[in-house]
């Protein structure tokens, strides 16, 4: 997935001399190829993220296409106001790349973990939000971010969970849900984003459920969400490595509550910080996002749906 990211970035830069990469002194090894192929367009802006994002706005104002890289804890979280005021307010074509989102930095604690970035980004007007799940969605997301020609936040989470698609995605249309598994129509449908699509597929395999991936969180196609909600009479389950507040689950229920009322179980990070450190798998378990805990909640949701009908 990281190779897909690097390849896409290099290809975009080779095709468009206006593409610049700005990093806040992060991305060790990730940009080796970019630096080799486009050395004059690699700008290490120092450990100064706020200035870096403002500077990207200035570069975009005079015709450049900045891609701004940082850890999600810093880009967007540390720089939310610069993104809002300097970039999104004037619809400037700046792509914000937030790496390590969720619990990737599981041993480092709260400072490097990011489970509120989607919520913050979604509430900023003009800002498109992408959250790819595998290398194919990553490649498609990078091209989408470029052709959007406006402000985009591209969330890069846990990247080694394997493919969820069988092959490349031609074009990523903003807002579309991509079905990645077809299962029993009488069971709830799973909608997941980023690293949790792999988990959703594993859970669905055991229960024969349908799964949709949501690589594009804003805008989100209301028609698509309603179609999925209507197809899944037993309800929907959302899964995300992000707070249950303001992320995928919230975005889905904002649509269904108005247009296609459905029972929705939102599986995400509870409204609290991590207590302990450990492996990524450990932190998922601490927050109830591991297959065992999430599966138990899905089973209870299925049970309750059966009792209610």
């Amino acid at each position: 997935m990281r190779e897909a990211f690097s390849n896409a970035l290099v290809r975009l830069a080779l095709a468009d001399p206006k593409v610049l990469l700005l990093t806040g002194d992060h991305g060790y090894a990730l940009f080796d190829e970019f630096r080799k192929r486009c050395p004059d367009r690699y700008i290490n802006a120092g450990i100064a993220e706020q200035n870096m994002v403002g500077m990207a706005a200035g570069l975009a104002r005079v015709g450049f296409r900045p891609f701004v890289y940082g850890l999600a804890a810093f880009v967007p979280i540390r720089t939310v106001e610069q993104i809002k005021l300097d970039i999104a307010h004037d619809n400037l074509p700046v792509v914000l790349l937030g790496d390590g989102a969720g619990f990737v930095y599981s041993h480092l604690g709260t400072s490097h973990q990011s489970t509120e970035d989607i919520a913050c980004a979604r509430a900023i007007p003009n800002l498109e939000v992408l959250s790819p799940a595998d290398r194919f969605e990553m490649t498609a997301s990078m091209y989408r971010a470029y052709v959007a020609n406006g402000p985009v936040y591209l969330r890069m989470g846990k990247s080694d969970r394997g493919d969820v698609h069988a092959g490349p995605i031609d074009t990523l249309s903003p807002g579309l849900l991509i079905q990645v598994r077809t299962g029993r129509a009488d069971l709830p449908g799973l909608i997941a984003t980023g690293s949790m699509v792999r988990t959703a597929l594993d859970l669905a395999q055991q229960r024969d459920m349908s799964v949709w991936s949501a690589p594009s969180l804003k805008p989100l196609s209301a028609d698509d969400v309603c179609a999925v909600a209507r197809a899944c009479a037993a309800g929907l389950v959302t899964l995300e490595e992000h707070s249950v507040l303001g992320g995928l689950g919230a975005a889905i229920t904002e649509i269904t509550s108005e247009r296609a009322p459905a029972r929705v179980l939102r599986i995400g990070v509870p409204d609290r910080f991590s207590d302990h450190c450990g492996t990524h798998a450990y932190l998922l378990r601490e927050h109830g996002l591991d297959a065992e805990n999430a599966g138990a909640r899905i089973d209870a949701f299925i049970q309750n749906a059966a009792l209610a009908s």
Partner: protein
Amino acid sequence: MSSVATPQAQARVEQRFAPARMRRTVLEMAYAGSTVHIACAFSIIELVTVLYRNHLRYPGNDPRAEGRDYLVLSKGHGVMAQYACMHELGWLNDSHIQGYFKDGSELKGLSDSRVAGLEVTSGSLGHGFSVGVGIAMGLKRKGTDQTVYAIVGDGELNEGPIWEGALVAAHHRMDNLMLIVDKNGFQAMGTTDDVLALGDLSAKFTSFGFETLEVDGHDEAAVDAAIRQLWATGEGKPKALIARTVKGKGVPFMESDNRWHYTRLNPQTFAEAIDALGLPGAST
């Protein structure tokens, strides 16, 4: 940096940007809109006067011309001074001035880049300078001779991103960028010395790698000369002009009285302020 070609044109330009008339424009806006931040605009009147009259190039008098120089008003609170210049240039008309703050009006109380002629959305302090650094970096990459001026308040220097941007500007040898500090000695709640002492600003910016000069920010000739000198010296270095100014300059009862950061005009103070400008036939 002057775009003026003929003596006749020069004379017309000299007639524009009279500081007293621009202060009257500010007062008229502030009175019409019952708004604040008058003193914040008054301290930079001569600075923007010299910039617009003698230095900023706008091909075709177009505020969005691609080849223009950039004036970034990082201290968005002084925006009425920039509106006054835009009025002198014909970019704003009298109805913009008299209709300030009417419901649905375009001109806001802080700089908003959606208005042609304003380059950044500021007022949240410490933003505009970084955007200016990015513009300067972009212009250098393009290899043009366009220049960027960023006006920041001395109170605004409390903000961290200013110093991040200063490091970056020096590191990348942005000699097309001039930071202008409106050193009026006040910020919202008191003097800069009382709130958060800034120390020796010239020494600070010099140590950051800027070519630095201090000047009386109300002496137009001195400001003009200092700007020319800064561009002419310190090759490869960004420039810093530390302009000593008086908050509320031009109306004696507003000068260095920080209440005029916040106070609105009433009919009496409006008339007194207009009178104090000493414009012929200005008495209301």
